[in-house]
C-alpha cells in the first residue's frame, strides 16, 4: 500500500511537467496546424537558460525560472517570425520538414555551445525530503509541481478569460472568419507559437534542476509531448493537461508493477491503444463533419 501511495505521489509530480509539455505542443498544433519538432529543443534551451542564469549570471533560482520562460517566449517568437511566417499557407509537410531541421540546428547548437557533458543546476532546496507519513517527496519536486500547476492555471486563464485568448480560440475554430472579424491572425500565430514554446522552456527549466541538463534531453521529452497530445486529442488543452497525468500514471504503475525495463514503452502502448480505439483522443468532442 505504501508503495502504491508513493507511486501515486510520483505520478502527481511527474504529471505536472508532462502536462506543461503537452499543453504547449497542443496549442501550437491545434491553433497553427504546425507539427512542431522544435518542442524538444525548446525544452532543452529552457533548461540551459536556467543553468546559465543560475550559474553564470548568478541570478538565483527563483529569478532564473522566469528568465528561462522569457527566453523560450523570445526564441519561439523568433522561430515563428523567421521560419513560419514566410511559410504561412504552405503545405503541412513542408513546415514539418522545416521544423525538423530547426530542431536539429537547435540541438546541435546547444551541443556546440555547452558540450556533451551533463550539467547540474544547483537549487536552494534542502536535501532531506518531506515526509508525509510513509511516503516522501523532495522539496524541489514539490516546488516543480506547484510551479507547473500555477503555469497551467495561468494558461487556462489566458486562453479562456482574456481578449488574446478569445482571439486565439476564434482563430483555432476558423481563421478566415476570425480574420474577417478583425482578429490580427498573423499576430495570433506568433503569440501562440511563442506561448507554446515558452511552456516547453518552462518544463525544461523546471525539470533541469530535478535531473541533469544535456543537449539530447529534449528528444524523449518531445516524443512524450506528442504522445500526450494524441492522448488528449489534437488541440484539446484540457485533454493535454489530463493526458500528461495519465501518461505519468501509466509509466509509474507500469514500471512499478509490470516491468521497469519497459517504462518508456508503457506510455506508447497506451497511445497505440488510443489510436486504435478512439483515434480522435480520449477527450475529443464529437467532430463536426462538413
Amino acid at each position, binding site marked *: 500500500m505504501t508503495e502504491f501511495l508513493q507511486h501515486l505521489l*510520483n505520478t502527481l509530480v511527474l504529471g505536472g511537467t508532462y502536462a506543461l509539455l503537452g499543453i504547449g505542443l497542443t496549442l501550437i498544433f491545434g491553433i497553427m496546424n504546425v507539427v512542431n519538432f522544435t518542442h524538444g529543443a525548446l525544452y532543452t534551451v529552457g533548461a540551459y537558460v536556467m543553468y546559465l542564469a543560475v550559474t553564470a549570471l548568478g541570478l538565483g533560482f527563483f529569478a532564473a525560472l522566469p528568465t528561462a520562460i522569457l527566453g523560450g517566449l523570445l526564441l519561439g517568437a523568433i522561430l515563428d517570425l523567421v521560419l513560419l511566417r514566410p511559410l504561412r499557407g504552405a503545405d503541412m509537410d513542408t513546415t514539418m520538414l522545416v521544423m525538423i531541421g530547426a530542431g536539429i540546428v537547435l540541438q546541435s547548437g546547444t551541443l556546440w555551445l555547452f558540450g*556533451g*557533458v551533463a550539467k547540474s543546476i544547483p537549487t536552494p532546496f534542502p536535501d532531506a525530503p518531506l515526509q508525509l507519513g510513509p511516503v*516522501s517527496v523532495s522539496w524541489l519536486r514539490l516546488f516543480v509541481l506547484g510551479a507547473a500547476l500555477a503555469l497551467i492555471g495561468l494558461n487556462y486563464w489566458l486562453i479562456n478569460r482574456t481578449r488574446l485568448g478569445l482571439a486565439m480560440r476564434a482563430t483555432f475554430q476558423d481563421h478566415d472568419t476570425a480574420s474577417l472579424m478583425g482578429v490580427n491572425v498573423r499576430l495570433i500565430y506568433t503569440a501562440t507559437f511563442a506561448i507554446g514554446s515558452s511552456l516547453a522552456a518552462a518544463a525544461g527549466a523546471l525539470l533541469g534542476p530535478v535531473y541533469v541538463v*544535456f543537449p539530447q534531453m529534449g528528444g524523449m521529452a518531445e516524443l512524450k509531448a506528442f504522445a500526450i497530445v494524441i492522448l488528449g486529442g489534437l488541440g484539446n488543452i484540457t485533454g493535454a493537461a489530463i493526458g500528461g497525468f495519465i501518461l505519468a500514471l501509466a509509466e509509474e504503475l507500469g514500471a512499478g508493477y509490470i516491468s*521497469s*525495463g519497459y*517504462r518508456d514503452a508503457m506510455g506508447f502502448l497506451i497511445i497505440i491503444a488510443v489510436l486504435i480505439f478512439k483515434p480522435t483522443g480520449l477527450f475529443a468532442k464529437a467532430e463536426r463533419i462538413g
Partner: protein
Amino acid sequence: MTRSHTIPALTLAFVLSAGVAHAQAIRIGVNEPLTGPFAASGTYVVNGARIAADEINAKGGVLGKKLELVVEDNKSNPTEAAAVAEKLITSDKTPVLMGAWGSSLTLAVMPKLADYETAMLVETSSSGKITTSGNPYVFRISPPSALEAEAFAPMVEKLGLKKVDFLAINNDWGRGAAADFGKMLKGKGVTVGLVETMDQGAQDMSAQLSKLKGSDADTLLITAAVDQLTLLFKQMAALGLKKRIITTGGSQNPDQIIAQAGAAAEGTMHLTTFLPWYPEKTPNPAATAYFIGEWKKRGFEFAGVTESFRGYDGIRAIAAAIEKGGAADAASIKKGFWSVDFTGLNGQIRFAKAGPAGSESGQSKPDVYLVKIDCGKVMVPEL
C-alpha cells in the same frame, strides 16, 4: 627565380613534407561516445588517450614513427559505433582501434573487426559476451562483470550481505553485471531479490526506486554510469530510501558523484579499478603520479581520472602491441597483442586467452578495489 615562382614551390614543398610526415605516423582509431548519455565518460577516455600518445611521441614514438589518434564520436549509439569503426578502418586506414566504451557499443563494433581483420583494444566495456563470443580481434583491459564479481566475492561476508536487490541499466553491460553478480552471490548463500532495470537515457527512476524501497533486502547493487548514478542518489534521498549501496562497472567516477549528488552520495560504496586518491597504493605509483600530474597540467578536472586512465593504459597497450608485432599493419599488431606485458595503472596488462578454442579473445586481469564515500571524501574501507 621570381617571387611568383617561389610561393608555389614553397607550397608544394610544404604539402609534400606534410604528406611524408603523415605517411610516417601510425594511426590509431579511437571510437568513443563524445555525445549522448555517455559523453562525459567518453570524453575523459579520449583525453587520457591523448596524454599517452603525447608521452610516447615525446620519447620518439613507436618503431621510429609517431602515433596519431584519429578520434571519432559514436554518439553513445551502437549503430553509430559500428559505422564509426567501418569509417576508421576503411577510410582513415587505421590498422588498430580502441573503443567503444559501452558494452552494447563494443558488441556492435565486433562484427566489423572480424570483417576487416583489425584488432581493437577494449578499454571500458564489461559485458562477459565481449570476450566469450569467439571474436579473436578483441583485446580487453577492463574487467568483465564475472571477473569483477569474483574480485568482490571475498568482501561479501565481511560486509555481511544477506539479501541483495539489483538495479541495472537495461543493456548488455547492466544485465550482464546483474547476472554475474547474482550467480556469485547465490554461490555464497546470499539471497537475490528484485532485479530492476532502467533505460540508458532514463532520467526519472522514482518508480523503480519506490519498488526497491519496499523490499526487505539490506543492500542494493547498482550498475550504471556516473550521470545516472548521480540522479539515482538524489532520487533515493528524495524517496527516503536508505540501504547499503554498492555500485559496479568501474564508471562511477566518485568525485563527480560527490560534486553533483552531495550529501545524497554519503556512505555509498563503489567497485572501481583505479585508486587515484592513493597513488602510492596503485601497482605502478610512478606512472600513476605522472598521469595524474599531466592530467592536472592540462587543466582537466581530477574527477575524470577514474575514467581517463583507461584511455591512457589503452593507448600504451596498443603501442606495446605495435612494438611487439614489429610492424604497423593490422595482422602484426594483432599478433603483437599476445606478447604485451607491462604494469599499467591498475595492474599487469597481459592478455590471457578467453572464449572458445581456436578463436580466443584476449583478456587482461586488472585489480578491483572497493571504495566508500565518507564525509564527502573517497576512502578505502577497512574490511
